[in-house]
């Protein structure tokens, strides 16, 4: 089953090239996935990237504010987001993404899950725009 899904993914891969504004791999670490649940404190609908901020409480009750980066507003609108309706300050969400290389509470967001179980992508997958696995030119 996993194999089938992966094969389908490869076929899809050849069909849809896409890039983001900048390299994923320079700023984020695909080996550091993170899933956090918390309360939205702020949303920035800005170019070249939108951001939202989440207050996340740990086991001891300490609260940390996390910043998540994702698609620009135009791409979000084509991905199903409605500004001021889909996600609001005070909403509880679960976010899946990858941590920033600088170790701060900053991450690249991939998927947001809302309280009612709906899911939407806020950003592209890991690895977007960072050059792939092989350079474009052969170095002899």
């Amino acid at each position, binding site marked *: 089953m996993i194999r089938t899904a992966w094969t389908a993914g*490869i076929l899809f891969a*050849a069909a849809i090239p896409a890039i983001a504004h900048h390299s994923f791999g320079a700023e984020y670490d695909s080996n550091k996935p993170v899933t956090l649940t918390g309360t939205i404190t702020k949303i920035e609908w800005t170019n070249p990237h939108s951001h939202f901020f989440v207050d996340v409480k740990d086991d001891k009750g300490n609260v940390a504010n996390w910043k998540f980066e994702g698609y620009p507003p135009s791409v979000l609108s084509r991905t199903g987001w409605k500004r001021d309706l889909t996600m609001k300050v005070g909403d509880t969400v679960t976010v899946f993404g990858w941590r920033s290389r600088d170790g701060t509470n900053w991450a690249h967001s991939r998927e947001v899950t809302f309280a009612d179980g709906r899911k939407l992508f806020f950003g592209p997958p890991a690895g977007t725009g960072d050059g792939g696995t092989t350079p474009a030119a052969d170095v002899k």
Partner: protein
Amino acid sequence: MKHRFVLSMLLAIAASAANKEVPRASDGKPDLTGVWQGGTTRRGNWEEANSGLGVGGTGRDPSAPANISPTAAQPDHEPAPYQPWAAKKVLESFNKRGIDDPAAYCLPPGLPRMAILGLFPVQIVQTPEQIVILYEYMNAFRVIPVNAKHAEDMAPTYLGDSVAHWEGDTLVVDMIGFNDKTWLMSTGTFHSDALHMTERYTRVDKDRINYEATMEDPKVLTKPWTVHSTMMLREGTRVQEYICAENNLDPGRYENLLKNGINFQR
């Protein structure tokens, strides 16, 4: 009953054939007018064609959907024919994960890159005298006169000087007058101001344009480099505003990574 079934099948086939016909402009040329998504062969509106996995990605991370980016080398494309010294420079950008990408500084990313990326739509407006191409990515545009000569006093520009003519049903765009500040395709694919590019747009049916770009650059490449892609019609999609400089945090973050010695290289 059987006849009715056969009739409805024939009608359906006729309808789908009509639907695939190439729309023509008043001058009889194929009409390229429309909003398009590059780098895909999926038919349908934006939502239908991009549902499920979304857009973006390289597929390197198995936990994420696998969509290849044009900043990754394309498996169906030949390696870029760079001269040995230039290939080293391409590799340097690759190893730095493209922090020198003009797009990261909100500069025009370059062609044919911008024409075939899938994340942002491209709108073509065709008249008999000129073709206008509007790129949502970086809010860029090209105004391309048909059957005209290149300007004589060209200053080098990011997207160059384009003139077009028709060869049968294919729109051929000749481009010169580039600066050396953009990338052609994937990470690090720089070029010189001697770049000469030829684009070919062929609308093969209602939904699809076959796109081809040939790049010649004697200062950097060993031979002409041709890439093929497609642009698919996305009815109902609007090209929107994209003002990249609004809140671009990336150059500052790169500076920080370098200053603090954080390893992000391959």
